[in-house]
């Protein structure tokens, strides 16, 4: 659902900023809070201009207190607001994880559906930016594992805008992780004005016949690079983009078509989201598969410092190796 009209080339972070401007204009109950989001416009400039345009009640700076930010948002929701909370970095969100697990995800259930929590928690996530540890994490699985919380990770500027808009309009809490590696480097056409990409729908980034590469966020670009290099192979690249709710059908349709699936995930390997996708394929697509479902992932270590981070990050080379192994199976 996007409105007809003009497209503008924007980066991911520009698309996010554009989305926030549009949504705050559209709905006066939407507000933005977080560390440095007001006067400075956010460390990545995602909230630039909001405070000036909508005033200090609709976009305000908080102290460094992530549990307090999300805990306060709980009360704001109770009173009818739709808070959009920025966590400055992926790993800074862990103090707010407590609020998500113990409160936010449970209220609706506990109250028999009487309480609604249209909270958005958005954060830049992932590595590759030469940052120190705790500025590079891929924490999606913690959030996906929390009942009552939805999780989305866009990979393109248009989706970054549309998915954030869907999250803001959603009646449930949604965590949106934004690939900071591509915040400025990934550019694309983004519809002006209102633009919503519904949660629960995957995107087929590239269509092929022989092999499916599955990813989300910054790993989609890695899969596309691998698909380019596999010039003798026809590749489906499936961008999951909404981890919960998950578009199972898109995954199963692609697996049925190609019979070969490689799942790429930046997060540490064990119990990562790739394991969930692999389990779904094992349960529902076993007779369609021509070989084992393979995972290309990060490692079960804290995210390493910059000299060796390239060895940690799944690369096109590792994806190609997995693809060849599967094609030769």
């Amino acid at each position, binding site marked *: 659902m996007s409105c007809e009209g003009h497209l503008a080339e924007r980066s991911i972070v520009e698309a996010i900023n554009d989305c926030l401007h549009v949504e705050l204009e559209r709905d006066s109950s939407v507000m933005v809070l977080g560390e440095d989001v007001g006067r400075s416009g956010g460390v990545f400039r995602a909230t630039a201009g909001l405070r000036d345009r909508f005033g200090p*009640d609709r976009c305000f700076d*908080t*102290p460094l*207190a992530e*549990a*307090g930010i*999300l*805990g*306060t*948002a*709980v*009360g*704001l*929701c*109770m*009173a*009818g*607001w739709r808070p959009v909370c920025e966590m400055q970095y992926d790993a800074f969100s862990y*103090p707010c994880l407590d*609020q998500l697990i*113990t*409160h936010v995800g449970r*209220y*609706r*259930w*506990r*109250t*028999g*559906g*009487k*309480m*609604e929590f249209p909270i958005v928690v958005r954060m830049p996530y992932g590595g590759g930016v030469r940052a120190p540890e705790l500025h590079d994490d891929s924490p999606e699985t913690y959030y996906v594992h929390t*009942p*009552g919380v*939805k999780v989305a990770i866009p990979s393109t500027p248009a989706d970054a805008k549309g998915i954030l808009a869907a999250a803001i309009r*959603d*009646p*449930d809490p949604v965590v949106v992780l934004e690939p900071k590696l591509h915040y400025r480097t990934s550019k694309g056409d983004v519809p002006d004005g209102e633009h919503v990409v519904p949660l629960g729908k995957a995107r087929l980034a590239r269509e092929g016949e022989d092999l499916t590469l599955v990813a989300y966020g910054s790993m989609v670009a890695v899969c596309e690079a691998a698909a380019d290099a596999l010039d003798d192979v026809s590749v489906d690249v499936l961008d999951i983009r909404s981890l919960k*709710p998950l578009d199972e059908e898109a995954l199963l349709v692609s697996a049925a078509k190609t019979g070969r699936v490689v799942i790429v995930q930046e997060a540490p390997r064990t119990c990562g989201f790739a394991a969930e996708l692999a389990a779904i394929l094992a349960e529902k697509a076993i007779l369609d598969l021509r070989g084992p479902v393979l995972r290309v992932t990060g490692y079960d270590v804290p995210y390493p410092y910059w000299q060796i981070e390239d060895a940690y990050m799944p690369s096109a080379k590792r994806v190609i190796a997995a693809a060849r192994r599967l094609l030769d199976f």
Partner: protein
Amino acid sequence: MAKVEQKGTLSKSDLREFFREMLLIRRFEEKVEERFRAGELPGFLHVAIGQEAVAVGVCRALEEGDIIASTHRAHGHTLAKGTTPNELMAELYGKMEGCSHGYGGSMHLYDIERGNMGANAVVGGGLPAITGAALSFKLRGEPRVGVAFFGDGATNIGTFHESLNLAQLWQVPAVFVCENNHWAESTPSWQHMPIEDISQRAVAYGMKAVKVDGQDVEAVYKAARRALEHARGGKGPVFLAVNTFRLVGHYIGDPQVYRSKEELEETRATQDPIEHLRTKLEMSADEVEEIDSEVKEIVEGAVEFAKNGTDPKPEDALKNIYA
């Protein structure tokens, strides 16, 4: 519930009404204990015996539209905020007729229509939400106040400090009611706090702090009334340091090996808020008996109501996770 006089003065009949409500909470809690011991109610249940004056004094001082968040020791607050004994008992029995539809239980009692934003099994859980709700009242110019109940143990938790800092920073209309019963479960306050005067914690954030005797319902009511006026008047949040006493264990069945029998007996003999009020009102044995049999009947009725309630179906647990 009948509203008492607005000026903060209490007539004898107001106080008699307070007495009735405190006794209702006491008899309710005793019944919960009895039904637990009879094997009808599973754990883990925390009763508010000894702290009735805090719940009643604060909740009676509230105005229409004010909201509260409670703790793991929530039955008293819940009844005082207007949830009926039937709905509360049904919740403890896990019935659909309960105030949380049988999904919350003792530590997750909600009554949104009556302004009860919930009990909370996580210590310190209610404070940030009350801060946020109060921020909303301020932003929208609504003359409402958010009240968070919590114990002395909660003042050691991060969300307590984040909430007090935010509330004072943003000057929101909130009242933080610290029920200092001197025990964090089985750990005495001298062992979990390096200071004696708990109100210093609020003072450290620049917040107005008021100390009050939590066993004197009239004192609690008056202090709460002033705190609420202060907050409602846009003068910022208030920390109410309420000195109170838990006359029972942390949970039903707690052997209290950490507490000396002498201390417990002395506290029970000297710090019973219901006994204090009875003495103050010079109530005769007959008067007390009349009220007592009335509230006992209400509590018996609540048990009957609860037992006859509807069990939730297992598949109902799959509902209401998402919209």
